[in-house]
């Protein structure tokens, strides 16, 4: 964890010195994680792609204008969260779409079952009404970030995250029970 943070700091310094490849490395490192977060929050692939692009542009501006960056990963997630919130605010709707883009699958039976389970869990996540709980489910159980990292992203205490993780999982279980 500490080494990863140090690497990020080195990349930021290199980027500030004019090394565009350093920024490309930051992009490669975080693009998938950020996309997944945006996709599970919005349920829309195109929108997720657009928001992730904007996040990187904003982060580039911040890197270049000398803003103090303590933890790059937390900063990127925070920027993305704000962009998602802005998007729904501008649409005057806080309700997120219920249906996910489900890619056409022409797989074997086993993979179809796996897809069904996955879709069920995805839908259940979408039905978690508390946005904090939903974010915690994505960050803690899908991305497997540590409580410390999540606390930085959501700007709250670690104790609070630990409690909310438990509650979020309980709510998700309740929703899944309703399905069955």
């Amino acid at each position: 964890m500490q080494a990863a943070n140090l690497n990020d700091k080195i990349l930021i310094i290199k980027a500030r010195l004019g090394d565009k490849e350093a920024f490309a490395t930051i992009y490669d490192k975080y693009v998938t994680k950020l996309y997944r977060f945006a996709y599970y929050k919005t349920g829309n692939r195109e929108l997720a792609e657009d928001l992730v692009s904007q996040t990187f542009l904003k982060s580039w501006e911040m890197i270049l204008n000398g803003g103090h960056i303590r933890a790059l990963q937390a900063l990127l997630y925070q920027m993305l969260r704000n962009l998602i919130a802005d998007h729904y605010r501008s649409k005057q709707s806080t309700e997120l779409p219920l249906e996910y883009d489900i890619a056409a699958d022409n797989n074997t039976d086993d993979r179809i079952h796996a897809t069904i389970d996955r879709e069920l869990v995805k839908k259940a996540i979408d039905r978690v009404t508390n946005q904090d709980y939903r974010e915690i489910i994505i960050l803690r159980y899908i991305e497997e970030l540590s409580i410390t990292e999540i606390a930085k992203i959501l700007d709250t205490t670690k104790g609070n995250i630990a409690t909310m993780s438990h509650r979020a999982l309980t709510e998700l279980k309740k929703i899944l029970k309703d399905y069955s």
Partner: protein
Amino acid sequence: MNDQLIAQLNKLRSETPDRTWMISNRESLLSQIEMNDYSIADRFGLKSSLYFNYLIHVPAKVALVLFLLVIGFGSSFMVKASLPGDAFYPGRVIIEKVELMLATTPAKEAEVYNKHAQQKLADLKKLQASGSNNNIAGTVKRLEKDLVAAATSLDIAQAENVDSLDKLAVDINDNAADAKDFIDQTKQEFIAEESLAVMNQVLATTQNVEDKTLLLLVSMYGQDKISAQETADKFVTIIDNQLTTVSNKVQALEQVVETSLLEIDWTITYTNIREAYQVLTDAKANLQAGDYTAVFKELTKAKTIIKNIENTISNIEVAE
């Protein structure tokens, strides 16, 4: 159910963005970003630091830094040895904050908080010996804060599946028990109602920390992080200490409290203590025999008896 659900959630990590989009977006971003708008000083936020360039080249200022370092090292010993109320104590508070900032994981944080709690307990003993009762209530509050923070960080470390936390859990538990004993013995010296209320509140918190760390040890055992023998061993020691403490407390109280005024039957209390000792002896015998199921059953029983005795005596107020 939890494990299955978490495994299912982990599988959602297989969702990845479209590879073509990733590459084209990367190229598009790199072509959009421009460096020319910002000078190097802007990029490193150096504009506000007006004296930056002069400072590193002026030998006199380097000498000043060295002088400050010598003074700093000289006074660091005094800072570390300072007690609440001393002129150097704020320096110690800053050192503690720096130590916490350097702790990068919850387990390390728990360790640091526990170390601070241990130091505060030592401070309290020194303050009591020197008769500076004025600072005791404040230090007890800070001790409470450190203990609670240590237990919370330990809880988080355990939730993050960090191994080898058992020693730390036992250390925090020991500290909480020591703190509880100290407050219990000292609280009667505080006549002011406000200070007494603080002491009673901290007493309840330390008891919670003690119970919480015990529960954590049980949960570590449940997750096979420590063996049954290790867990049972630790529990026997902890509960043995708790029983000795409560038994001493009862004996001390019986001598100073007028039983006739209260509806306390000391005979029943002593019978309970004897029963707890007997149950604990059986637990020790079963520990030797390797029958851990029986050990935990007996320890639970002993703990319940101790809790009942503690409840009985908790409301007794000793008149001055």
